[in-house]
């Protein structure tokens, strides 16, 4: 029974191989807004479900093998994201990579209350990207990058918000994911730093590839409208709130 619960939590707070279900749910959820809601809700439900399970009933989660699985999962999804050109696929693969790391708090008995907040560090920027991908799809028929050249000149507002959201997703300083990652590394023994640093490197690579496709080149497709002022401001407010919350509560994020 515990196993079943654990697999269920693994589908919601994604860790490979159960993470395939998480990705499938987001993939098949219609519209960008629906995907974004799923991206924020599923991990939170996963954390809540995990909180209802006694630690003693899932000893596997507290073993070294579980940390290996979590690190492998994070690395696998980050590595897969380096060859992705579609915004919503990139966002969910990168989010899967980051969200999996939250399991480390449970694995090291560092408090489940941290987990509910830490998942937001990856789920909110990913949700924002999913919304932007949806808006882009509505306007241009798809959110594929690199086919028609850079979008920065055609839709500068969408491009700017997508760029900042992508930065927020890959542990860029001042965003919550940076401090959350510091916290994750802080609770582990130094030996485990190596795989996590590798994850950070692959995130950087993946981000570089994503931005290169998003921003650079001369656009050769049909023109389509950019975001309005209100929508752009709303996105900017969400991102600013992320930065402010990270800076103000950095102690809580870092957990030192």
């Amino acid at each position, binding site marked *: 029974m515990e196993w079943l619960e654990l697999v269920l939590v693994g589908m919601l707070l994604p860790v490979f191989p159960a993470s395939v279900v998480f*990705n499938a749910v987001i993939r098949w959820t219609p519209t960008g807004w629906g995907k974004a809601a799923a991206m924020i809700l599923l991990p939170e439900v996963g954390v809540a479900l995990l909180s209802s399970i006694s630690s003693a009933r899932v000893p596997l989660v507290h073993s070294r093998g579980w940390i290996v699985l979590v690190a492998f999962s994070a690395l696998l999804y980050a590595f897969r994201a380096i060859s992705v050109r579609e915004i919503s696929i990139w966002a969910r693969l990168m989010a899967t990579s980051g969200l999996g790391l939250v399991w480390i708090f449970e694995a090291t008995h560092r408090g489940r209350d941290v987990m509910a907040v830490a998942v937001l560090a990856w789920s909110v920027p990913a949700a924002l990207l999913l919304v932007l991908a949806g808006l882009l799809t509505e306007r241009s028929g798809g959110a594929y990058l690199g086919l028609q050249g*850079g979008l920065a000149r055609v839709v500068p507002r969408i491009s700017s918000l997508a760029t900042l959201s992508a930065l927020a997703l890959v542990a860029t*300083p001042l965003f919550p994911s940076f401090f959350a990652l510091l916290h994750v590394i802080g609770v582990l023994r130094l030996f485990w730093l190596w795989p996590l640093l590798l994850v*950070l*490197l692959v995130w950087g690579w993946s981000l570089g590839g994503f*931005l290169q496709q998003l921003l650079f080149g001369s656009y050769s497709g049909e023109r389509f409208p950019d975001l309005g002022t209100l929508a752009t401001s709303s996105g900017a407010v969400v991102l600013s709130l992320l930065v402010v919350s990270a800076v103000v509560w950095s102690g809580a994020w870092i957990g030192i």
Partner: protein
Amino acid sequence: MDTTAIAVPFLPALSAVLILTVLRANKRLAARAAVSAIALSFLISLAALLQYTISGTSRVETLGHLWGSIWLDPLSLIMWTFVSGISLLVHMYSVRYMLEEPNYTRFFALLNLMTATIFFMVSAADLITLLGAWFLVGILLYFLLGHDTDRRQAGRYAFWTQLTYRLGDLPLWLAAFVLYRTYHSLSLPVIFSRIASAPSPAHLWGLPVPAVVGTAVAVAAFARSAQFPLHGWLPYTMDGPTPVSALMHAGIVNAGGFLFNRFAPVFESSGVALHIAFLVGLVSAILGSSLMLIQNDVKRSLGYSTMGQMGFMTMECGLGAFPLAIFHLIAHGFFKASLFLGAGDAIGDARAHDGVPPDLVYVSIVERRPTRPSRLPLWTAGALTLAVPVVVLSLAHFAVAKALFFQQGTFVLLFFAWVTGGQALYAADRLTRTNPWKLMVGILATFVLVVIGYTLISHDFGAFLYPPAASTRLYHSASTGVLSDGVLLTILALLFVSGWVVTVLSDRRDWSRRLARRWNGPYLAAYAFFTRELYLNDLFSRAGELLVRVSRRLNLLLRWL
């Protein structure tokens, strides 16, 4: 020193926010806001530096309870003044230079954010601020280098830079966590005082902690300062706007030298890291200078020149001459900034005037045309070349720093300075004039002045940055202890003198042409090897493409889920 100094990093950051939120549509006001903020930062930095020279007290300003602390010590204040000075030049230059470019206001906002981040980086008094600022510099540089989004090449090379910087960030993360776990503090001054007061170094993975941290910090510095084999990105960053090239070559790539100095207390008990730094710096200096000579693109040639200079800077750190590295990075920064910012004028002049000026130095060095055969007698020129630099340099150093004169690092540094001086004299002799003696006397007088000035400045600079005991400990840590000073110097001297002899003989007997005729295959292979920049970039590109293919296969296998 009052609290006004804390405004230095915040002024450019605030002006960037102002430009992005309010002044986005107003080019003139945005540029003015950006330049004013940097000018004010420069003035406050200068005032704080002057105040420090009078009071001589450094302190830490804490803004947050965990991170965000600023260390107002001589190193931070010198770096603030230097960075704000260079940044001010770049800003003023950009006001007109970038006027016709798209995203003018965004450019200034990014430039100011970059300057603010560098300010935070060089003055960080805790590990998190240092790590965050170090990390952010790489991100901001990506956007500055890729300012022209129409050009795919700009994006490609910005990506290379970002990836190399990210690779270099990782050892710094390792160093930060090892320091935090071992010394139980995030504060750099506290960590350094605990390292100094520990009777014996703590161990991690069977190694002394200072050695682990020192090596990690050194690797982080190598990536940031384009040291072999992490140098491939630097010559290709010229696709960015010229002011960005100037700022990067003058103020960002030399962050490696700063990092060595910031972690100097760690290196006092980490000789291994310093030996690695010396070797990497030596290889980078030789490679950078060699590759610079065979480039057919002027800007790329400047890129390799920077790599070579950064190699010398790293070597200086590897020899324990930490303050000299700071002096070097400042001198090189202003020199490179002037070269980049003056490049447009030089091109304009060349277009305006028919042909290049008939300058003897230009004809001999750039066009490599043989000059008139009026020279000093070979033995006279040889004796001057060998004897004068060693006498002048030794006397100058002996006069100002007797205590350090007998350290191995100083010996090696003097040796390199002698080689450089000898090389300059040798090159001057090859130029020839109708009156070679007049030329030689002029060069010698200049040489003496430069050496004395350099020695005095570097000595005073050292005394300003470090207490004498710390300098001695750094030199002591850098000593190998394997070879005696005499043996080491004899080997190096023999190597360089034989190099000169071979050059003179090959020049006189036309060896190079004969060798090229006889060993044509290996000669062409070597030429291709160097012109393809040791095939390192090809290797990294291939490895990258292979990994992307594997990633794509995995995605297909897992059906993108």
